[in-house]
């Protein structure tokens, strides 16, 4: 299975000059589709095993096994990893397909598909890894792929800046992961995942005890990794900037797959987290905070992709919260439905951006309802699923997470409430997007499209800075595409739309438990896995979810369709709050002031002052000064000495060498 994306990467990378036309795209898509088929085959063979034997490990070769460290290249196949590879390869196939049309006019077409296939390879490595070492490798390689794709249009300084930001924050996450691994390795003496879990349950961190200091430290450090990858506060600032990448990339990596790796990580490490309740609490609180804060920022942003990015953060907040309170199946269920509807939303957004000739500002959009009927339909489906309106998929998955939170009672009730407030915000900002982009008076581009012409910007500009684009590397290229005009895009979006509508039906409370049952073998030791649903709470949750979602939509309709003046009035009235949201709660400024500026200042001090004064003048000056101290005679002796010494050594060693060559 790993072989297919690898082959795709290599073919696209080496054939960048020779591959005719758009064939790289089809090769890339085919490779991922084959991987998807392989994933299905794995699923079938795994289901052939009895539920107790559904954790298969296969070691390929010794990687760095020495001195008690057992780093091997080993693959772990169990229901959780199969669940993940099905989502990853399935969604990836569709997005590759979409990209064939979307990236058609781009100069870097082959490079794009090479990177994209490389990403899928890394992601599969991450979810299939059978030990910590390989997990870290996959973890970092997806970060690298993400970096490459964010900086894909590398002549834009905004894109390269966003790329380095994403990379560095991800490295912070990698460091968390490595250090966390050390803390755990210290007690378990193995890097293998299953052996680690085994050792843990056998009392590597103390028998029947929770909250061992090293374990909690290790788990919190693993969480740092998860937060960095999944864009949770305060390590989230890279994700909105990552929208500099091509839209299908945002759809695949920064919505559907890579950013959910943190959720996967917590679910994978559940035997550890179960014993470290304080780490679980940290995860739950950060998840809840992120879902709320990201929701409020999403309300005030004007870049269509960034709004969806904040929405992604917010939804992953739900998942992180879910898996942190033990709602593993629910969290992963939401991961799956989110992959469908969020990828769909991004694809639809890509279609609008295409119609706008690269423009991404909501303020310039409007009235695309008639010009882009298919896109509109997809966007509404995705929006309803995101807002959690029954019977769309997001409804079931989100409510299931909150249900578990409510059941556990205690302070988890706070999470329950936050979750529903977040749901209200979600509906509000989602339909703000829809109403502003598709309703109202059609803008010039929309009218042009209705008349049958696709708008192309004559002088493409960077949507972030207004700077003129350098079209050498493709962006935005002379051609833009909308879903209405490209069959591959249409097909990909249709499939996802079906998923966004129907994926929720696999797990309806009281009716069927497909996900629960499938994942069970992985979570046999998870205490909270079996849900004991109280009827009252269940119906309350379902009703509340529906009402809150509809209320959000209704308010959005009132503000942005009926009375546009309200928005303006509210903006003036709650100026400080609005400023806070528009400026993204000042996280960028905070990190800048606390981390980046001091480090840069220290570096400058080191090179301008310390290096010159201390190293060069005091130490070097001192040494040379001592040598030169006496007089010119001393100096002559010194240089003479060097030569003498050198000559003696050369002669001596050469003589010795000669002597032995004669001897042997």
């Amino acid at each position, binding site marked *: 299975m790993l072989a297919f994306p690898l082959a795709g990467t290599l073919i696209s*990378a080496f054939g*960048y000059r020779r591959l005719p036309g758009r064939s790289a795209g089809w090769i890339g898509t085919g490779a991922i589709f084959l991987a998807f088929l392989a994933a299905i085959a794995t699923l079938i063979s795994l289901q052939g095993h009895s539920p107790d034997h559904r954790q298969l490990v296969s070691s390929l*070769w*010794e*990687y*760095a*096994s*020495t*001195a*008690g460290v057992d*780093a091997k290249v080993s693959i772990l196949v169990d229901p959780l990893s199969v669940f993940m590879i099905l989502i990853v390869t399935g969604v990836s196939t569709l997005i590759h397909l979409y990209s064939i049309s979307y990236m058609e006019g781009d100069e870097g077409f082959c*490079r794009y598909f090479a990177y994209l296939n490389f990403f899928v390879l890394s992601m599969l490595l991450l979810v299939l890894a059978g030990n910590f*070492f390989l997990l*870290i*490798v996959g*973890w*970092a*390689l997806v970060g690298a792929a993400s970096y490459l794709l964010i*900086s894909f249009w*590398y*002549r834009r*300084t905004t894109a*390269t800046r966003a790329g*380095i930001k994403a*990379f*560095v924050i991800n*490295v912070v996450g*990698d*460091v968390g992961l*490595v*250090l966390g691994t*050390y803390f755990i*390795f*210290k007690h378990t003496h193995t890097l293998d995942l299953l052996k680690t879990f085994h050792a843990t349950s056998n009392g590597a961190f103390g028998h029947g005890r929770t909250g061992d200091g090293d374990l909690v430290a290790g788990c919190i450090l693993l969480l740092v990794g998860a937060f960095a990858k999944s864009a949770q506060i305060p390590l989230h600032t890279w994700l909105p900037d990552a929208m500099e990448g091509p839209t299908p990339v945002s759809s695949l990596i920064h919505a559907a797959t890579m950013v959910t790796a943190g959720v996967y990580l917590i679910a994978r490490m559940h035997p550890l987290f179960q014993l470290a309740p304080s780490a679980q609490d940290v995860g739950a609180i950060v998840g809840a905070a992120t879902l709320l804060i990201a929701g409020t920022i999403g309300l005030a942003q004007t870049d269509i992709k960034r709004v969806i990015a904040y929405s992604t953060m917010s939804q992953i907040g739900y998942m992180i919260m879910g898996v942190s309170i033990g709602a593993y199946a629910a969290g992963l269920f939401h991961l799956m439905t989110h992959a469908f509807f969020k990828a769909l939303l991004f694809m639809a957004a890509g279609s609008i951006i295409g119609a706008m000739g690269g423009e991404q500002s909501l303020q310039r959009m409007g009235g695309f309802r008639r010009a882009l009927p298919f896109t509109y339909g997809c966007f509404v489906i995705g929006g309803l699923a995101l807002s959690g309106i029954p019977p769309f998929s997001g409804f079931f998955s989100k409510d299931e997470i909150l249900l578990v939170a409510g059941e556990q009672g205690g302070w988890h009730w706070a999470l329950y409430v936050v979750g529903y407030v977040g749901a209200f915000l979600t509906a509000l900002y989602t339909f703000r997007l829809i109403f502003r982009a598709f309703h109202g008076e059609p803008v010039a581009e929309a009218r042009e499209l209705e008349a049958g012409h696709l708008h192309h910007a004559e002088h493409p500009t960077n949507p972030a800075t207004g700077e003129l684009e350098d079209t*050498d590397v493709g962006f935005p290229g002379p051609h833009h595409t909308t879903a209405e005009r490209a069959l591959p895009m249409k097909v990909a979006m249709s499939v996802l739309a079906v998923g966004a509508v129907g994926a929720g039906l696999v797990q309806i409370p009281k009716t069927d438990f497909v996900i629960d049952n499938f994942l069970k073998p992985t979570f046999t030791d998870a205490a909270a896995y079996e849900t004991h649903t109280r009827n009252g709470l269940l119906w309350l949750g379902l009703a509340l979810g529906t009402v809150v979602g509809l209320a959000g939509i209704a308010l959005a309709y009132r503000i942005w369709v009926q009375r546009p003046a309200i928005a303006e009035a509210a903006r003036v009235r709650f100026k400080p709050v609005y400023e806070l949201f528009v400026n993204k709660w000042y996280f960028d400024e905070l990190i800048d002031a606390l981390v980046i500026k001091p*480090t840069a200042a*220290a*570096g*400058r001090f*080191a*090179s301008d002052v310390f*290096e010159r004064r201390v*190293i060069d003048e005091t*130490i*070097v000056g001192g*040494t*040379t000064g001592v*040598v030169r101290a006496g007089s010119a005679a001393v100096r002559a002796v010194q240089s003479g000495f*060097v030569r003498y010494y*050198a000559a003696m*050594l*050369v002669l001596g*060693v*050469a003589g*010795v*060498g000669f002597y*032995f*060559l004669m*001897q*042997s």
Partner: protein
Amino acid sequence: MPPLSILLWLPAACGLLGALLPAGAARIPTPATAPGGKVRRPSSPAGIVALLGSLAALGLAIAYIADYKAGGGPQHVTDTMWISSLGIHYKLAVTGLNVILLGMTTLLFAAAILASNVRAGGPPERPRLFYFQLLLAESAVIGAFLAQDLILFVAFFDLMLIPFYFLIGTWGRDPEGSTRVRATTKLVIYTLVGSLLMLAGAVATGVLSAQQGGGHVDFAFSALQHMPLSTGSQEWIFLMFAAAFLVKMPAFPLHGWMPDGYRAMPVEVLMVFSGVLSKVGAYGFLAVVLPLFPRAAVHFQTVMLLVALASIIYGSAQAFTQTDARLIAGYSSVAQLGFITLGIFALNSQGAQGALLQMVNHALVVAPLLFIVALLAERAGGSEDIRRMGGIAFRAPVLASVFLIVALATLAMPGSGNFAGEFLILLGVFKAKQAIAIIAFAGVVMASVYALRLFIRAMHNRVGPGVTPREMTVRDGAVLVPIVAVILFFALYPQLALKRSERSVQGAVAQAQVLTTPRHLSARVTDLDQVFNATSQE
């Protein structure tokens, strides 16, 4: 297998042969124009002899790697009494500590010699002398790695310096704000002070250990290990050796010669200087200091770890504020060598194994990095300032890809061999001194900043004003591609090196490791005896 002396002296012999070739051969006019428009100097027969010699040495080294039996002790031993009255042996052996380093050394020298042959400006002036010096340096480095006698090691260690003294002084260039004479003087004074201290320390070791043993003086490592010095003597001798090795690496705050030295060196020379010579210092710690002065190593463990930590943080902070691409590579080396020192002074097998792997890895990335910097400078109107670069990737996708691989390996991307090394190093340090390991991780994050900054400023963004983007030539590729292939190989299979070095590394750190273990643990078995037996068998 042929005796080790052949591997050792082959480069120098080829250098001598090249130097003895008639000078007239070099003057055959072959008018060829380099892409830059400058006239290429014709390639020199001395250069070709040198290339063949270095390739033969590389082949031999690969044969030794393939032949090395992972479980065994020193192999292919050559042992002859050199100066019997002083107990100095001419003793060479391949051990787990040096076998991979031999491969790395010969690979880098071959690459550097190839680079000097294919550079756009053609081979250097006075090629016969140039190649003689370079090959003499290669022999000296190989000698330092192979030596199993303390005095022999010191002799080769000092011999390394001499060719570089001439190489920089004669073929160097004047860096901004300094001169190559000044740079050379600085370098020589620094390293000479260290070397003389080490020579004194070496003599003292032999004499003192003979006094204690009551017997005759014997400088062979194996003999010295059997007669450990008293703790007090170990400590002051340790400091002398440490001075020499830390200067060579260089480590903060003894890196004062580095900025001028790096900028003054011709790029081929710098490739081996930065890639190989720095490793001799680290190797010295592992192969000489830890086995001979274990008590001192334990005594100074914290100091050394702090020096290493300071090198990491200081080097990284410098690397991301510098704008001279060469100095970015230079300071990043300070940081990377800091990691290596850190691993060695974790005083356990994980750290030392990681350090040894990292020596190879660092050499493999820094040499191509410096060569790429030279290629970039050719495209940026001769300037090595990253502010004058930019936007080359579009016209040079192959160069960009190679650079990207090297940059990612430099920042120890997981999935590269460098990460495997760093992982082991930090794991070792984590076991020894948890707090230091945690702080050292700051260096990991900073590495990602400076490596990517260099890559982006050179390759991405808008095309710089004086920049003429063009692809690298096939000749340049001949230098870079083999090294990158080795980087990729180690990314997939670092076990190759680790498997071979495991036993020797355990032997090297064993005594120090036992001394650092808390007493209640080591007291329960006669660990010391066992360890002693294990090491003396080697």
